[in-house]
């Protein structure tokens, strides 16, 4: 468990260092995710302890957004002043983003599978 956490934090540390060193626009933890993925590919998969540690961290992922989310208190005035355009823009664009991404991927992968089956016939 401790070794797995040390591995995750080391990947994050490497990510933060490289992001800063090369002034990349990608945050350290996202780069760290790529480094851990590369490490897992090289070693042929996660060990049981790594799988358990990842499960523990991800099982209650929503909890980790609560402190940042409570920061909404700092912006109540601006949110109230422009409530209508912000609310419509957020709801509208979230539905549009979900729909475009979900429909595109499901249609293209279904078309790909259908094409493969047709080619095998």
């Amino acid at each position, binding site marked *: 468990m401790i070794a797995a956490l040390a591995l995750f934090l080391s990947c994050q540390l490497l990510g933060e260092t490289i992001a800063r060193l090369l002034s990349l626009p990608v945050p350290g933890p996202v780069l760290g*995710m790529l480094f851990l993925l590369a490490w897992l590919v090289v070693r042929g998969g996660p060990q049981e302890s790594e799988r358990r540690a990842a499960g523990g961290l991800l099982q209650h992922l929503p909890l980790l957004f609560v402190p940042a989310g409570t920061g909404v208190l700092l912006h109540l005035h601006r949110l109230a002043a422009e409530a209508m355009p912000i609310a419509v823009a957020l709801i509208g664009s979230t539905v549009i983003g979900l729909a475009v991404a979900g429909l595109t991927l499901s249609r293209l992968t279904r078309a790909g599978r259908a094409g493969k089956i047709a080619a095998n016939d």
Partner: protein
Amino acid sequence: MDASLIEGPAHDIWVYLSAQPLLWLTLTLVAYALAFAVQRRLHGNPAANPVLIAVALLSIILLLTDTPYASYFGGAQFVHFLLGPATVALAVPLYGQRQRIVAQAGPIFIALVVGSLAAALSASLIAATLGATPPTVASLAPKSVTTPIAMGISERIGGLASLTAVIVIITGILGAVMGSGVLRRLGVRDDASIGFALGLAAHGIGSARALQISEEAGAFAALAMGLGGTFAALTLPWLMPPLQRLLAAQ
């Protein structure tokens, strides 16, 4: 008897505890545990989003006790810190789906480009059309991507980084609440596409929701979150200035 003598000890304890991390860390966990229990009671209904309920509970407590957000964050930062290693840990479900991701690289790339642009451009256009001020429009553009990337983009295109942070969280909650319902109505039924849409439109909070659906949905959400953030960071600083000039000229 002097009232301050009776109130004195309780007041002193409150002053002491409210400045310590213990109280706010405990309340953060209690609020989340309550929110999680509520969602469970409602059979996992996505509308009872645990982030939404916990944030609402804590906001009420902070407003009623007149506690500054900075004092609250002094305790909550220990939970906040775990976001970093949790993001790294998303590599584990991602690894489990590696073969499917490689096999579907083409469709994934196309869905990434059209989905990211649709979310960012529709947010800016709707807000500008309805009369939002230019800094608010700029703060809205990167709303679908993970907080640190979104704040960086917002600053570069004339937005307010801290407003973007809040907008990103609200977007995540909206995506997690509406996501599966919207996609089901559109006939999107495979977990990979549902997860990908949640991660692209609603970053980490969408990924957390996708992990509740299945490990496959969670893996595709993590993939979309990483790709979407990178794509937005590379394109929005170039795409937004001409759009902002166009909107200002109207």
